[in-house]
């Protein structure tokens, strides 16, 4: 069966760690890192990359447009 797999790329240095993407993700993929970036922000990253379905919800709500979303069909 064809399954949708997704992934996101966060521009770490431009992320402001607002956490809006985290709550927007339907599959709890994203977390804020315990480390900070150069501006002192806890940036977002894929904590559960496998769960990503590439729905782009996170990117849609990211105020700083620092998330790119990738999606592909994979045969399960």
């Amino acid at each position, binding site marked *: 069966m064809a399954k949708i797999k997704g992934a996101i790329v966060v521009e770490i240095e431009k992320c*402001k760690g607002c956490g809006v993407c985290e709550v927007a993700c339907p599959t709890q993929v994203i977390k804020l890192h315990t480390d*900070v970036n150069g*501006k*002192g922000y806890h940036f977002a990253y894929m904590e559960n990359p496998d769960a990503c379905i590439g729905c782009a919800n996170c990117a849609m709500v990211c105020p700083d447009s620092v998330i790119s979303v990738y999606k592909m069909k994979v045969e399960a």
Partner: protein
Amino acid sequence: MTEEIIIAGFGGQGVLSMGKILAYSGIMQDQEVSWMPSYGPEMRGGTANVTVILSDSRVSSPILNEFDTAIILNQQSMDKFESTVKKGGILLYDSNGITRHPQRKDITIYRIEAAAKASETGNTKVFNMIVLGAYLKIKPIVKLENVIKGLKKSLPERYHNLIPQNEQAIQLGMDNVKLIQKV
């Protein structure tokens, strides 16, 4: 006696209120003081700094381009203010987030790991009081009792219960400040 200080760091590190407590302490021992902050929207998540002057005589310019002491709490501030310390003056800094340590040879340099100490205590809010303690250890220009009085004046009544914990933080700073370079 006149002491001209710049305190600089991120907004949110308590830079402005640390300056305010210092200024109030000066008043408590009858000094002339001035406190001049940077202001405006660039402070939004950006940098904040304040110039504090304590003096036995009337303060002339509240704005300076040279300081007896610079207290520096992030890299941007280091870049901006290291050069403004007077020859023979003092630079106190917290190394957390610092990627380029001070390089001047003609000033005395101290370090206080206030961020680390604050998170050790589990109360990051006292960060600035640890820094203040470190500064007062180096330059005891105001008496501790006057600092406590200053704290009382600058905190709203409902926070006065926090004063003991601030006092402890000041002590922590006094105990942990390290001399890095002496001129």
